[in-house]
């Protein structure tokens, strides 16, 4: 079976579940609406996804640490497929985003000037030829135009404390809506083309969002990669293939579970010569397993420096019901009841002491390298 892996960079879960085309695709797929990302920014998020392991272990736990990826210790999705004889091709937004080990060809697009839809349609045509030549392929497509819009209209115009931005939440939401609609159209074009080229029969299509994006929910974070609130760490994952039953899973899973799931579906054995994944296959969940999975996230609050920090300074642990956040930069802690307070407005750290103690221990354990 081949693999097409599509990242919709910066897609928010609340828009995904209501997206015109997204909705249709969700109805035909195994969809995990609470796929908690390790890092609410693309570099950290994608390295964790591609290695099935949290960045505090792989070395990529900040915007700056791409070269630190321990490729000899953690086998990536691409390397697995490459070693299994797949031709591995990808198109990404920037050379820092992915561990490149195992790619036969990894191109970097110009997010401002390139037409991503046309570019990726052309890549689909290339992999169709590979398929016709009897070769297995892996194709990675990175849709980056939500990021492009946010970069041009938010990151470059405002800082994390701009009054003008945070007092215009409705305007921010409208702007984001436009960006998301374009992403939804892109996805529709790509999936329909896959069907037209008869790729879907023997190709697993995985569509993920790497992280969400703020529309001004919390002062101090105009976009993402600062805090660990749900509007950025609640990402999604979708697995589309006829062998998988369509299911909408609301239980919490982790983005590090994506790689083990793909290997499970493609029946590629785990390589014992590398470190074990932190993640677990999601197939048991699709088969009814409801064992809770705890999620660990780390972000990098630039504070007033204008640059992301070199080490994560906001750590969080999340269960289906609770979230505990430790702000390393000032030593403060936060605790939220996610069932009753999904917007994370009411910090219960001094009230729910026992829960905080338990989660604090969980966090300590997960954060140890």
């Amino acid at each position, binding site marked *: 079976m081949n693999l097409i892996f599509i990242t919709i960079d910066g897609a928010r879960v609340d828009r995904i579940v209501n997206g015109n085309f997204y909705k249709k695709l969700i109805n035909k797929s195994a969809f995990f609406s609470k796929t908690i990302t390790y890092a609410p*920014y693309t570099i950290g998020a994608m390295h964790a996804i591609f290695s099935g392991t949290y960045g505090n272990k792989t*070395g990529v736990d900040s*915007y*700056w*640490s*791409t*070269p*630190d*990826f*321990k*490729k*000899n*210790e953690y086998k990536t999705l691409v390397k697995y497929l490459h070693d299994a004889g797949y031709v591995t091709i990808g198109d990404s*937004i*920037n*050379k*820092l985003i992915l561990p*490149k080990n195992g790619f036969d060809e990894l191109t970097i697009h110009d997010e401002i000037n390139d037409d991503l839809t046309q570019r990726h349609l052309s890549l689909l045509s290339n992999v169709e030829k590979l398929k016709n030549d009897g070769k297995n392929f892996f194709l990675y497509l990175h849709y980056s135009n939500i*990021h492009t819009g*946010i*970069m*041009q209209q938010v*990151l*470059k115009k405002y800082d994390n404390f701009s009054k003008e931005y945070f007092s215009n939440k409705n305007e921010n939401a409208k702007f984001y809506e436009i960006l998301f609609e374009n992403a939804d159209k892109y996805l529709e074009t790509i999936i329909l083309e896959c069907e037209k080229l008869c790729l879907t029969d023997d190709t697993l299509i995985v569509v993920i969002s790497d992280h969400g994006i703020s529309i001004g929910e919390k002062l101090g974070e105009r976009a993402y*990669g600062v805090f660990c609130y749900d509007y950025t760490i609640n990402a999604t994952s979708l697995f589309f293939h006829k062998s998988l039953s369509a299911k909408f899973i609301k239980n919490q899973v982790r983005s590090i579970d994506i790689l083990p799931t793909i290997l499970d579906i493609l029946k590629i054995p785990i390589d014992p010569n590398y470190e074990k994944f932190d993640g677990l296959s999601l197939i048991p969940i699709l088969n009814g397993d409801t064992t809770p999975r705890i999620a660990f996230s780390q972000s990098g609050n630039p504070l007033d420096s*204008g*640059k*992301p920090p070199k080490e994560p300074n906001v750590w969080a642990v999340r269960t289906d019901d609770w979230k505990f956040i430790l702000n390393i930069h000032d030593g403060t802690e936060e605790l939220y009841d996610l069932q009753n307070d999904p917007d994370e407005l009411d910090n219960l750290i001094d009230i729910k002491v026992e829960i905080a103690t338990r989660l604090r221990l969980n966090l300590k354990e997960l954060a*140890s390298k």
Partner: protein
Amino acid sequence: MKQNIIFLIIDSLRSDKFHDTSKTSQTPTLDNLLKNGTYFEQTISSADATILSWSSIFTGKFPFKSGIRSSKFNKLSSKTQTLFDILKKQNYHFYSYLPKLSETVGLFPEFENDDAYYDFYMGLTNGLGDKIIKKLCSNELKEPYFLTIHSMDLHDPISVDEKFSNSDFGENYYEQKISELDFWLSKITKKIDFSNTILILTSDHGCYIKSIRKNGKEINFNINANIEKTTSKFTKKIPQFLHPLKNKLFFAREKLQINKKKSIISKLDLKPHEKRALIAGRADKDHFLFDECLKVPLLIIGKNLPKNKKIPQQVRTVDILPTVLDLIKLTSPLDIDGKSLLNLFTEKEFEENVAYIESTPLVLSESNDVIGIRTSEFKYFRDKNNPQKRIHLYSLKSDPLENNNIADVNDDQTIKCEQILQNIINNFENKNAEEDELNTEEIENELRKLGYV
């Protein structure tokens, strides 16, 4: 059960002052340890200062490969595996006594003792010795353990305890301090159970001893430790915005002192190695890589290891990591530069390995740094950025004190050494290029493109 390991680094300890006919210190403990272990007489550190040297010792790689870059003092690259990473997988417990700031280089693991880092000026006599002894006597060390001790006692400024401050204990302050250290090592080593513990005693680098005897008279340019400590305490309180001024004053003071020293030295008939020892200052722009700063002791003691054995061949501090792993029957990573010294214990064939060497840049200002190689026959180093500048070549067999630079009269050997050096650097750079490694500046440019900087 794996054996415990005590890794004792005595900062700035030179091999010729550890075990050599020229030493004048009183060292009954060291002499006894030598009788009970295997001593490597010609051990070469990869660098002339602590951080780069540590990076080599604890990764088994030459400093420029570890991510701790001498030019920017970057942290250890997180993909570089350390001795601690390997031992952690074998369930070793880590304890340490390291000078404060050691934690900033990203080299060391999380230590289990609360007092893992001590104040820079704490020596064995004024508290550190008692702390170590107390720890060794306690039941707090969970086995197997790896205890790292880094003593700063011999680091400038040296302060000798009154009891040892006379010529009975050494002809200069440095050797007197070694006698004092020996007294404490006696107390510490008595607490070690050698039936289940390997002791590794070494140093991170050597140093210039700023005191020589000429015509029966001592010329002593040693820094006064008490003045230094007081100055340090005072300068720590200086607000950040005045630091440029503080640094300016430091360099001006150093310059003044060098000029004063030069004037005294010009009246004396001194050999090059004596001159450079006396004149060396902390703010010197031109750096060198002479043996007094690179040749360190290496002594290994443990159950079933050879006793009273002295190994004359050149070995390197990068060889310590694979040797330690070999001693506890673990395999070394493939990508390291060090080679296990176990064959030397058993007198099997051992091919000498070239030592890569690197000087450590100044932190507060630019310095002219050098890189080079050392074999048991030759020492070669030259400007770090330009192979044609500041070329030094010494024949170590005929000129062990490195007084005569023969680079100009021995072109063939110079070219040969440069080729060996190029091979070491290029092999790494080519491999690196394949991996598309980015430096901090390049990463920042990429992050700028993404709108994050």
